[in-house]
């Protein structure tokens, strides 16, 4: 950029490419239909290993640059071996990651340089649900609290607006906050 009056914001997000994709997918809605996948294999006890590699979208198949592996297990207080985070913890991580990616993208689109972004996420759970002790207690989280600590070149109200917009456009926020129909089959 030669215009020295406009400081260049670099949060490592290619906003032009995203805006271009938005326009392209507005014109070709079929290409916007993606499918995300994972496969999961039981290892032993409560330990399982999920693998993520391929997905479809833009009218074709894609593969990640490499196959990614996520181990999940239960902690030792549940008499397990703690070979990985619990599945609910993976959900918390996914929610925080999704919101944080949104913060970086929205901030860049709004010309805000980020210096640091830290999310702390907590989900409360009453185990009387999954243990079948009390039928009125749900299995899942009874609530999730996300706290952002953001150091950026912007007033607090603008940072709050960026965090709000990131929630508005977050896939995992929607996945967690709203019901989704799930079919589980056995082949």
């Amino acid at each position: 950029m030669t215009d020295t009056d406009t400081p260049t914001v670099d949060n490592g997000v290619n906003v032009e490419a995203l805006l271009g994709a938005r326009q392209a997918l507005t014109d070709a809605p079929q290409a916007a239909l993606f499918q995300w996948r994972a496969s999961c294999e039981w290892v032993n006890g409560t330990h399982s290993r999920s693998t993520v590699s391929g997905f479809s979208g833009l009218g074709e198949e894609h593969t990640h640059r490499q196959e990614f592996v996520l181990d999940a297990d239960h902690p030792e207080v549940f008499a397990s071996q703690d070979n990985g985070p619990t599945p609910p913890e993976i959900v918390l991580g996914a929610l925080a990651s999704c919101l944080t990616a949104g913060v970086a993208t929205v901030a860049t689109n709004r010309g805000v340089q980020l210096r640091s972004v830290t999310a702390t996420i907590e989900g409360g759970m009453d185990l009387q649900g999954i243990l079948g002790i009390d039928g009125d207690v749900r299995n899942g989280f009874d609530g999730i609290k996300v706290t952002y600590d953001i150091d950026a070149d912007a007033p607090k109200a603008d940072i709050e607006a960026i965090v709000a917009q990131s929630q508005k456009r977050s896939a995992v926020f929607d996945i967690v906050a709203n019901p989704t129909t799930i079919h589980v089959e056995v082949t």
Partner: protein
Amino acid sequence: MRTPVVVIGAGQAGLAMSHHLTGRAIDHVVLDRGEVAQSWRTERWDSLRLLTPNWMSRLPGYRYRGDDPDGFMTKDDTIAFLDDYGRSFGAPVRTHVTVEEVRLRGSGFEVTTDAGVWSCDAVVAATGASSEPRRPAVAADLPGRIDQLTALQYRNPDQLADGEVLVVGASASGVQIADELRRSGRHVTVAVGEHVRLPRRYRGHDIHWWLDAVGHLDERYEEVDDIDRARRLPSLQLVGSSRPRTLDLNTLIATGVEVVGRFMRVAGTRAQFSGALAHLVANADLKLNRLLARIDEFALEHGLDAELTEATRPPATAVGTVPTELDLGRFATVIWATGYRPSFPWLDRAAFDQRGRLVHDGGAGALPGLYVLGLPFLRRRKSSFIDGVGPDAAELAGHLHAHLDRRVPPAARITRAG
């Protein structure tokens, strides 16, 4: 029958267009399925008042001249106001004529009604923004035991069976209906989606006075970043009342209304609501405070600061922790206040895109000679208000006039005497 222009709908939009056509001596007829202001007569609840103060009831060549400029017209006042407006310039309204079909015919249109067929060079669709209620698909999953009403069918609390009411939607219709039902002694739950929170008054003026003053209402459709989104924005969370008052989620909660998130799904005997409510209310508060900051800035720039009352911001919306599931057995009635949409089932399919949306540029249709008027943000933010349809009608009447001139030499056109 032959006339240069057929205007469909004798509400604020149709009459405003008729006034401009009359001024340009363009012969036309205004058809309405009922009377002038028909939807106000048949599709509004009893207690509804305009959301804009009386002084903002300005139509081309006509305005409110009563002794209560800061008051809000009742439903009956509004009907009388529009009736008087039509009479003031002798609008050529044909009442109780139902349009059945508008088809392209040659370079003009053929308008088929239950009272005969008109052929014309131009058609103005002025049937309004609220022809049909929007109702989410989840409505079909409710048990048949629960009475379902849309905001267009709601009249008053006595109309409902005894028992708890779930009001879905928290824009103007939803909060007003929930408030009225609560005041009648009902237990009321409101399912809240995206909404636009506003105080009724700010720093001694009505909020609409400010929106008008700062130029917000005059923002044009060519100027905004995303017009599709601007047109989809929910209506302002306001109420017109005998004494001006703010009606927001805090007000409702204080009177004992229960608040939950967006109604997402029926799962067995339970209704499931979105867990994103805290985000939606925080976002509405952020936008509210941004608007009020813009107003404060305007006041400062225009030297109004000294004469105004203090800049007190409304308290943050406090919804607390709300349930994401409720037993449907609690509810006797569900009221859908989930918005409205225009509907043109009689209009030639060539006027619509593949997704069934009417194609137009600020009201000038894709078919030459076709116009639409009175939709949200048609040409400016206030397009769907009584105060906003006039400027749109003026511009589109000019466009329409030029269209007629291109088609027919002026001398050959039939014009109305006087």
